[in-house]
């Protein structure tokens, strides 16, 4: 799983991986629905399994981490595209 790749989840919808971060040795992903952009998922990624994060404290930590990751990776993604 890498940033920009597309995954089909069990709901049958296709999601694009926006960001991937690590927190306490676990991998978390931020996915966005390719067709309905308001539909996104923040989830733990483990052995090809996606487990949606529901713990509010963890969400707080993850959102900040995703922000940091995107701040760094976004210019690279854009320059690769260009």
């Amino acid at each position: 799983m890498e940033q920009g790749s597309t995954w089909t989840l069990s709901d049958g919808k296709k999601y694009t991986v926006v960001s991937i971060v690590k927190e306490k040795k676990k991998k978390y992903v931020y996915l966005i629905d390719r067709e309905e952009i308001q539909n996104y998922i923040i989830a733990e990624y483990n052995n090809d399994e996606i487990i949606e994060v529901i713990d509010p404290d963890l969400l707080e930590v993850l959102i900040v981490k995703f922000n940091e990751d995107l701040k760094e990776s976004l210019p690279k993604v854009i320059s690769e595209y260009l």
Partner: protein
Amino acid sequence: MNLTNDQKKEILLKYINPEKDFVKAEDGRILISRDASRKIAESFNLNIATGGQFEPKAICDYIIARERQRLAAKASIERKKDKERQEQNQRLSKIVACLKQAKSEDKSDFEIAKSLYELGKMPFSEIINGVEQAISAGVLDSSNKVKEFYRIFINRSVATSRFSSYVNSTNRDRIIEGVANDLINYYTKNFLSFGHLRYALNDSGLDEEIIDEVINLFYKKYEPFFIERFKGIDDNQELAHTIYQKLMDEDVFDSTFIIDYLNKMKKADEVDDIAYSLYRLEQDEKRVYKILMIKDISLEERVKKLKDLDLHYPISCLKRTFDILRPAYNLPYDEILELYQNGSTLHVEEPAQSEEVIEELIPRSPDISSLNKDGDGFIEPHDPVDKETTQLVQRRLQIIKKEKEVEKIEKKKTLALLLIGAGFIPVAVLALIFKVDPLTASKNCVTALSQLGNGSLGLSGILPDVGKFTALLAGMGTSFVAFVKYLKHRKKINGLNEEIEDIEDMEQAIEEVEEIKKGRR
């Protein structure tokens, strides 16, 4: 500039000989002799009446003043030269430092050239000098392509500014004609490859629709060059290989375009013949890419997989493919090539995972196996050709073209989604009651919005509701509402409500906007 008396004396002695050039006039005054006066006038380009004589004090002051000026100018030129030398040395050190740094970071030649370009405007000769020095010092390998790639960056910036100069023109037809003419000029003179010219066009700020029309016009204008360029090659296989190598790797000249041109210079059956070869080469290229993209396999395994493809690809095409990938993916291309050409045929156990990857990556194509008369997996010139075959192959080429287009659109869409996704996060951060600096956090959002809004990435129309800046803002509003709801749902806490009061006001406002939008629909 001050001169000592001795210096003044030395200067004056160049023009006046005190023993014979001072003469007494009839009125008793001491003057410079006529002959010396004439010579002085010539030296300083002065007007003097025939037989005229200079007064010693005046002409000596004049000569000293002029000499002082000349020396001052000389000193200033020397200072300027010194400064230039100093700046040149500084630039050279900068270049060499950049090369050392890039090499220590194991950057590719392309990336090294990019780093040099990013140092700022520098004379090309100095870059060459810096690279040569780096080669002598063993920092760079002598076979590197840094100079070549640097030239590409420079030429790209020249082309970009040239194309940009049309942006403010109001006459659309003139823009298209002008840019297409420049394009053909740059391309046919090997100023830049078509791929890089496309980058320059995209960077120019020209409207995407205009760029499309420019390309179409370019195709029309390029036709005579194409015919001229390839008309001497009689052998069709050779022609196919040459065309493929020269044009297909430019990424713009797809099969359909080439076949259109070929139809104007060859008989129909010959065109089919060449089309088959081009198709096979294209397929080969795809397979080679897939093999090179497989991660975590040994050099020998990779070479074996390449050999197993039983390529129709000539080695020159393989080299070219490697060169295209070289800047982007770090692989031991030279070793692969060496082993591919000369190595023994190794037997390697195939790891199951790698096979899966290959299966997954093999491109899908329409089934035309019934046309493959000799069962070797390809429709070839020696397979009997009929009208149906020709049509199917042409359709297949069309499908390949379509697939490429879809691939490009999907790539654009992914980028748009990443930018939008990045835009959501700061909103979420704000919703988390400013626990991080909202200004910093909003930077991603602003980047995403401006990149999408100014159309510089050519993403307009890829996602229906984010094509334009205003539409994107509405989209962001919707996402904001959704995200706050998401958090509230997840948190299920009451304490947060008070803190997000302001945000809820915004939420309310956005919902109203949404209602209005729905009403309009």
